[in-house]
């Protein structure tokens, strides 16, 4: 079971802050991040990659994007 960060409706830097908070907690190897804009998707991806995480999956849906980020 992966942790989820729901950042829908929030604009930068909140989605990044929330994702980094979750990453820093250190208990999860996989995090699902929900965002509603392309900009947030780009920002969260960039921030996750800078922390050594990889973008495992990106799905687009009606409400926005569902990113799955992973750390080996």
């Amino acid at each position, binding site marked *: 079971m992966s942790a989820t960060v729901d950042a829908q409706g929030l604009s930068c*830097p909140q989605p990044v802050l929330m994702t980094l908070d979750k990453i820093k907690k250190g208990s999860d190897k996989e995090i699902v991040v929900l965002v509603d804009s392309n*900009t947030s998707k780009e920002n969260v991806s960039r921030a996750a990659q800078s922390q050594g995480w990889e973008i495992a999956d990106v799905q687009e849906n009606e409400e926005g994007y569902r990113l799955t980020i992973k750390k080996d």
Partner: protein
Amino acid sequence: MMLKNIFATRWGIIGVGGLIGVLAALLQKLGNPGNMGICVACFERDIAGAIGIHRAAVVQYMRPEIIGFVLGSLIAAYIFKEFRSRTGSAPIVRFVLGVFAMIGALVFLGCPWRALLRLAAGDGNAIFGLLGLTGGVWIGTLFLKGGYNLGRTEKTHTSVGWLLPLIMLGFLALMLIFPQIKGEAKSGILFYSLKGPGAMHASLIISLSAGLAIGFIAQRSRFCTMGALRDLILFKQTHLLSGLIALVVAAFIVNIILDQFHPGFAKQAVAHTMQVWNFGGMVLAGLAFALAGGCPGRQLFLAGEGDGDAAVFVIGMIAGAAFSHNFGLASSPKGVGPHGIAAVIIGILVCLFIGFTMRKKIA
């Protein structure tokens, strides 16, 4: 797989910053005011003058660049399917932040873009403004770390996101219906400056085209000066910062070529040398931008892609310009206005109140 957004890459943002720098320096050459090829705050202030909500005779002109920024962003957002009509994240707060952002920017005499352009033209006073801007954004990041946020937006009717672009189209229509008449301070309902910065402008078609081009690429790249400083302080990220640096370097090079580089502090174009208030004005502006989530330019581009809250910030800035000039808050080359210092202090207090009290739990 989705088409990759090349403008959102490192070289993309550098290219966008560079192009803005080049176009700004060229716009100055083509008629815009000194070290003000582009200034979002100054140009929104000029628009406030053009529609007569302040009556400072030297700063009245319906700036087509601003219209172009919003419409260029709208076009890009539609082409790349990023137009999303949304609102509801504390609009009244965004209005107030817009008002004080403008008041602070007009004490310094410029938005962050113009601060960079002033620096690229040799205006040393801009250094104090940029330090103030950084300080203001830094205070903003402390609030962000402490949980400050204005809450989530909601998706809404498409037409909501169209309102600011429609207002801009209305402004453009007014300009075409009531064009500037040589030697006249008024054309129909629009005011025009006969002298001062408001009388200096490139032709409508050039200004509008440059605005559209910048609006388009800035929407794609998410170019933001406040974001550049914020991400550096908050995340040690230099992505947006590289665009900001590219802007300064590009404008500097074009200024050298066009003989627009004049290093010094005294007698700089549309600037004053009261450094404490160059600094203080931009502390206020930077803090307001950080709390609102974007520099004045970015707010225009967000409004173009359907962000109704950013649109409220823009309207707040235009209203702030009216307050600034009606109440003697704005600076002039002679120095700060009679009530500028009081307004900066009040503005910082208001921003601190907003920052300390608006910590909505979002988890």
